C-alpha cells in the first residue's frame, strides 16, 4: 500500500484545539472538587487522588512501551481518568485496590481496545464497578465528613440511609439536610459529595465549550422527574450519590457518549431512567455507575439512530 497517499474521512480542516487542551480543561474543572474533598475527608483524599493519577499514567506508559506503541501520556487523558476514578472511590480504600482499579481502567478498558478514542466504555466508571463488585466491604466503607483533622468515623451514605429508611426497621436515622448534601458535608466517595464545586466545574466546561449541557441536564432532569413521579424526594435524589459527578464528568465523555445533541439527550434520559430504577427497586443503593456503563454500551446504536442529514444529501435510513 502506498504510504504517501493519506486517505481520511472528513473533517479535513482541524481546529487548533488538541486533546491535551480539552483534558487540561477537564482537570481544571475537577480541581475545586479536589480541594474541597481534601477539606471534607482529610489529607488522604489528596494522597489517593495523586496515587490514582500517577498510577494511571504509569500504567499507560508501561503498556504503550511494552506493546511498542506511540506514547500517549502527553495528552493527559490518563491523568483525567485517574482523577475521576479517585473521585469515585471511598477515601479509606487501600492503595493497592486503587492500583487494581487504575490497571482495569487504563489497561483493560482503554488500552486493550486500542487506546484513547477506541474504548467502548468509560474507563473510570468501569473500574469503579469492577472494584465495587470485587471488594464490597472496602468499597462501601464510607467515611463521614470530618472537616479536616478531626477523628475519622464511618457512616452510611445518604442513599444507603434512604434505602434503610424505606425498609420497616429504620426511620430513626435522620437524613442529611439539602444544604449539607449540596455543600458535600455528607459521606460518600471522594469527589461525589460536593455538588457546588462539581457544578462550578461543569459550568466552566460548558463555558469553555468543552462539553454541551445536554446530557447532564437530561440525566439530572430525568432523575428529578422520575423519582418525583415515583413518590421519592426528587431534590434528595439529585443531590445524593454520584449523580452530579457522573452526569457532569462521565456522561459527557467524548469517546463513550453519542456525538449528536439528540443522541446526548437520549443518552442522558436513558442514564436517568436506569439510575432511578436501580436506586428505587434494585439491590444496590446507587445506580449511576451502572447506568452510565449500560448507556455507554448502547451509544453506537444511539449514534446510528441520530445520524445527521448531510448537507445536500439524502436522509440516512436508521438501521
Amino acid at each position, binding site marked *: 500500500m502506498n504510504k504517501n497517499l493519506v486517505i481520511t474521512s472528513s473533517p479535513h480542516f482541524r481546529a487548533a484545539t488538541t486533546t491535551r487542551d480539552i483534558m487540561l480543561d477537564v482537570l481544571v474543572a475537577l480541581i475545586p472538587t479536589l480541594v474541597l474533598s481534601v477539606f471534607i475527608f482529610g489529607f488522604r483524599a489528596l494522597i489517593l487522588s495523586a496515587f490514582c493519577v500517577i498510577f494511571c499514567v504509569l500504567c499507560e506508559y508501561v503498556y504503550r512501551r511494552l506493546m511498542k506503541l506511540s506514547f500517549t501520556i502527553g495528552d493527559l487523558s490518563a491523568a483525567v481518568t485517574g482523577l475521576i476514578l479517585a473521585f469515585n472511590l471511598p477515601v479509606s480504600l487501600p492503595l493497592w*485496590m486503587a492500583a*487494581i482499579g487504575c490497571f482495569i481502567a487504563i489497561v*483493560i478498558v482503554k488500552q486493550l481496545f486500542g487506546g484513547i478514542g477506541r474504548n467502548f466504555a468509560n474507563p473510570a466508571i468501569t473500574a469503579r464497578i*469492577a472494584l465495587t*463488585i*470485587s*471488594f*464490597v*466491604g*472496602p468499597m462501601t466503607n464510607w467515611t463521614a465528613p470530618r472537616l479536616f483533622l478531626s477523628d475519622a468515623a464511618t457512616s452510611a451514605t445518604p442513599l444507603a440511609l434512604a434505602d434503610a429508611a424505606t425498609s420497616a426497621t429504620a426511620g430513626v436515622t435522620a437524613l442529611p439536610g439539602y444544604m449539607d448534601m449540596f455543600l458535600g458535608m455528607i459521606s460518600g466517595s471522594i469527589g461525589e459529595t460536593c455538588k457546588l464545586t462539581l457544578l462550578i466545574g461543569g459550568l466552566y466546561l460548558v463555558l469553555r465549550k468543552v462539553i454541551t449541557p445536554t446530557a447532564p441536564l437530561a440525566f439530572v432532569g430525568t432523575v428529578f422527574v422520575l423519582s418525583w413521579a415515583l413518590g421519592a424526594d426528587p431534590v434528595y435524589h439529585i443531590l445524593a450519590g454520584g449523580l452530579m459527578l457522573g452526569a457532569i464528568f462521565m456522561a459527557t465523555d467524548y469517546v463513550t457518549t453519542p456525538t449528536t445533541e439528540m443522541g446526548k439527550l437520549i443518552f442522558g434520559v436513558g442514564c436517568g431512567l436506569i439510575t432511578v430504577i436501580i436506586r428505587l427497586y434494585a439491590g444496590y443503593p446507587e445506580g449511576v455507575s451502572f447506568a452510565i456503563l449500560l448507556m455507554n454500551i448502547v451509544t453506537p446504536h444511539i449514534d446510528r439512530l441520530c445520524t445527521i442529514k448531510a448537507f445536500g444529501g439524502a436522509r440516512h435510513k436508521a438501521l
Partner: protein
Amino acid sequence: MEKKGRLSLLFNGVIKENPVLVLLLGTCPTLAVSTMAVNGLGMGAAATFVLICSNVVIAMLKNVIPDKVRIPCYIVIIAGFVTMVQLIVKAYAPEVDQALGLFLPLIVVNCIILGRAEMFASKNSVLNSALDGLGMGLGFTLALLIMGSVREILGSGTWFGIPITAGRIDPMSIFLLAPGGFFVYGTIIAALNKLTKGRAIKRKSMGCDGCPSAAACGGAGTGQCPPDKEGQS
C-alpha cells in the same frame, strides 16, 4: 494406523485442538462451573467419561444409525451415559453434584461431546474414537482446571479449598462472577495463541472442513449446503 498416529490422536485434544481453548466449544459449562478448581476437575472427569463412552458406542453403531436421524440417535446415546454419570455422582460425591448443579445433566447437550460424535466418532474406528474421546476429555479437563485454579485463587484466595492468600489479602470476588469468568477465559485463549504463535489450529481447518459443527449447520455460513444433507434443512 501406526503407533505415532494413535499417540498424536490422543494428544491432539490436549493443546493443538483443545476443545475449549482452541475449538471454543463447550463455553457455557466452562464459564459456569470453573469458579473452583475442584468443580472444574469434577466436571472435566464427568464429561471425559461420557465423551469416551459415547464416542465408542457411536463408532460401533455408525453403520447402523440412519443419516437423517443421527443427531437424535447421538443424543439418546449421550443422554444414557450422562444419566449413569449423574446417578454415580449423586451417590458417591453429593457435594460435587451440589456444586455442578444443572450443568451435570446438561452434559447431554455439551457441544464438545456432540461435536466429537459428529466430527470424529461417526467416521472412525472404535479404538481411534476412544482415544479421541480421551484426548478431548483431557483437554477439556485441563482447560477447566486452569480456569478453575485462576478464578479460585484470585476470587476466593484458595486452591482446592486450601487457603493461599485468603485472610491476608481481600480476594477479588469479581472473578467468581460471569465478567471475571469471561475475562479469565479470554486471557487464557490469548496466552495460548501467543505461546503457540497462533499455530494451534491450522489455517485449513478454519473452514467448514475443520469445523466440528459443519455437519450440523450444513455449511449454512457459506451458503452452499452439501447435496447429501439437503434433506434436513
